[in-house]
């Protein structure tokens, strides 16, 4: 077992190879001309998540149905192969939970709170604004269609996000319960409840992780250890001097914690499973506004903690010795890992209306761009009335114009350098390109 002193020495000797702010260069990317959902519980990124199935390698992403192709504005579930090939069935599955009276529920009142995947199953937790107050929560298993769901009822405060953890034994769900307590539930892969644990009192659990055969969950500076198999308590230990923990993660043996300091900094700690401190590091992030606050912490397969803010990702060395800030698009919403890649989803630009999913190589030497970042595609002008021109670095194999519901309107011919819009009514369309990197879609706005 490492000690805090030893690790601190190792960290201090590491070369600081990660410096500055670096645009990520995708191995492949995909975009959708929608997904900029408005605020729901002050979480504008609520609907947009990415998950990697560790068994199949498939990448799943949820994107808000902003154009209300489904009238209740649920979320699309898209699926990609590791090489970027779009495996989403047509029409794309819509995830959501219906409201008692849809007319009384404005759009953006229902969303994906958490997304996980394993062995062909996609697990998604949902929250829906109730008609007067409070959220209604549920957890769903999707396997080539809806498989099972668990209804969690109302949270009086309306602040809860049902959160999911998934391993080979099934799903751990944690969420505030209706009577102001907090519940943990372990389900097997078929949806049967294996154990439940109810914490009384009004304190909220911020985050939890599965490590070894334990579930470790944090609230108000105390880590509660539960037996993964039975839910029995295994004790507690304090962390970060009673500071609110933003997130917790694990490399399989140790735990990583992060919290936002009040002065524009993020502190990250590594601890052993019993709570012994291995190392701690504070990273300066700039003004402590929403964009710089960490909302997720992930540990990649190389053991490096990734602290995720809306405006960038801080990747630390596995011993906490260095950090680099990576950026992409206007906002980062979620990150998931396979063995060799990171998948990142978010919003491409603040002014636009585009959701992206990118795959980046986990080898930092290729993840870091050696030249200035250039967009993979430029469409101009936008909006356009008669013709829009394409400027792209790589080779285009085919191009199509689709309606926002996915219907093919026209197929373009080589050299794929322009699109004639004269025959299209005013509106928003999708330009679909197939290139060496796979298929990508881009918004196309016709205005006259």
């Amino acid at each position, binding site marked *: 077992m490492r000690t805090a002193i030893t690790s601190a020495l190792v960290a201090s000797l590491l070369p600081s190879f990660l410096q500055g702010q670096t645009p990520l260069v995708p191995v492949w990317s995909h975009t959708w001309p929608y997904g900029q959902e408005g605020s729901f519980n002050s979480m504008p990124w609520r609907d947009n998540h990415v998950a990697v199935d560790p068994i199949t390698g498939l990448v799943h992403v949820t994107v808000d149905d902003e154009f209300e192709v489904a009238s209740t504005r649920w979320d699309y579930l898209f699926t990609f192969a590791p090489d970027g090939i779009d495996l989403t069935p047509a029409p794309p599955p819509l995830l959501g939970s219906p409201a008692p009276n849809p007319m009384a529920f404005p759009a953006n009142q229902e969303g994906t709170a958490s997304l996980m995947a394993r062995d062909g199953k996609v697990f998604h937790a949902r929250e829906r604004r109730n008609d007067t107050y409070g959220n209604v929560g549920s957890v769903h298993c999707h396997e080539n269609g809806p498989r099972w769901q*668990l209804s969690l009822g109302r949270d009086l405060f309306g*602040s809860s996000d049902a959160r999911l953890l998934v391993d080979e034994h099934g799903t751990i769900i944690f969420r505030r319960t209706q009577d102001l307590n907090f519940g943990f539930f372990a389900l097997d892969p078929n949806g049967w409840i294996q154990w439940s644990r109810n914490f009384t009192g*009004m304190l909220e659990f911020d985050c939890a992780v599965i490590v070894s055969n334990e579930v470790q969950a944090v609230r108000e500076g105390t880590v509660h250890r539960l037996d993964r198999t039975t839910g029995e308590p295994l004790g507690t230990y304090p962390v970060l001097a009673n500071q609110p923990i933003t997130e917790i993660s694990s490399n399989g043996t140790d735990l990583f914690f992060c919290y936002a300091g009040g002065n524009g900094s993020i502190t990250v700690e590594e601890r052993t499973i019993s709570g012994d401190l291995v190392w701690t590091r504070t990273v300066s992030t700039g003004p402590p506004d929403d964009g710089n606050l960490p909302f997720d912490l992930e540990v990649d397969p190389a053991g490096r903690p990734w602290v995720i803010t809306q405006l960038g990702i801080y990747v630390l060395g596995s011993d906490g010795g260095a950090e680099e800030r990576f950026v992409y698009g206007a906002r980062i919403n979620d990150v998931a890992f396979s063995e060799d890649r990171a998948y990142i989803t978010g919003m491409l630009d603040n002014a636009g209306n585009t959701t992206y999913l990118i795959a980046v190589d986990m080898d930092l030497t290729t993840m870091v761009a050696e030249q200035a970042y250039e967009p993979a595609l430029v469409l101009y002008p936008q909006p356009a009335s008669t013709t829009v021109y394409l400027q792209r670095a790589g080779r285009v194999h085919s191009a199509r114009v689709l309606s926002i519901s996915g219907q093919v309107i026209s197929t373009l011919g080589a050299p794929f350098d322009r699109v004639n819009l004269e025959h299209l009514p005013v509106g928003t369309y999708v330009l679909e390109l197939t290139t060496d990197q796979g298929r990508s879609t881009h918004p196309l706005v016709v205005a006259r």
Partner: protein
Amino acid sequence: MSRLSILVLVGLISHALKAQTPPIDLEWTALRWFGNGTGVITHDPVTNEHLWALQDDINTLNANDEVKLPFLPDGSDVAPAYPDRFNVGSLDHLVDLTVIDSVPYALMAHQNIGGVVQDQYWHLFAGAAELIIQSPEEDLLDVGLDMQVEADAIYVCGSSMVGTANNDRGRSIKTDLQGNVLWDVLWDPVGTDALGRFSSVVVLGDTVVMAAFPLLVLFDRNTGTFIDTEDPAALTPPLQGDARLVAGSDRIHWACIQGNTLHFGYWSFTEGGTGGGGGFFQTYATPPAGLDVVLGENGEWWIGTTAEGQGRLLRVGTDADLLSTSTLYASITDLDFVNGKLSITGKLDATNPTSYVLVGTPQP
């Protein structure tokens, strides 16, 4: 994640749930943090929607009433923030519930705590209509125990006290679907081993059959005229208890608890009684509590009860052959089987009031 004010951590309640999973493919589950083991589940055979009734014993939604929690066929919760509720006054509770084509039929019990004598009586709700059922002499105790809704009529049963205390009679009433009484009968158990109450009612052809174990008490379906009694278990000593019945195509399947043993069997006009003792039973370390039976498909039927701190689900063949036994959470309080789906409700664990309902399709 947004944060709440820090309040004192009061305590921690937990329960590891050891279950022999029932032989069904689970489709949806719902949890609520109240109800305390009094849940009733019904499945509308026309709309395929479900209505789950739970006592709001933590007064979160509607103080101490049974709240109506509707679910779409896939288990989606469509209850408003303040759900509709069952309420006929203080000290009331829901006994049985059926919904057909969105019309609810409910049997409720009520005690008039404001009366000089705290009279107990039944309320039968047929849609918007209400029928209050009391003893022929008022201010006595009346208990409704079961309801069977058929295509053309409602049958309810229970007990009414007649004359003096400790003089209970079995009572059964048939109404039309608007709650208008078609017949109303009392049955005196004097001279039999039966208790003075009908614990369950089913309809088999032209006969209405009541459970007053060890007896089945038969009445004419059209007139309510007493026909005969039958002893389906024929055990010595007699099998006394509040049995539950379910009618198959030509058999009545029954289950009855006596001491630590759950007996089950069937009876028909042509075959007489089979079951009870003789291999048709399950014995537990503690007395089972609560009982429900429902008819499945292919002649199978299901028994739910609670014993040794766990829900117990028995899958029984048409000849009362025990096909499987399963354990499920902390209790089973009600079963329903409609359109190939089995619904089960009860308590999730023994140490807090969390209620569950689950719906699934039985495996072959």
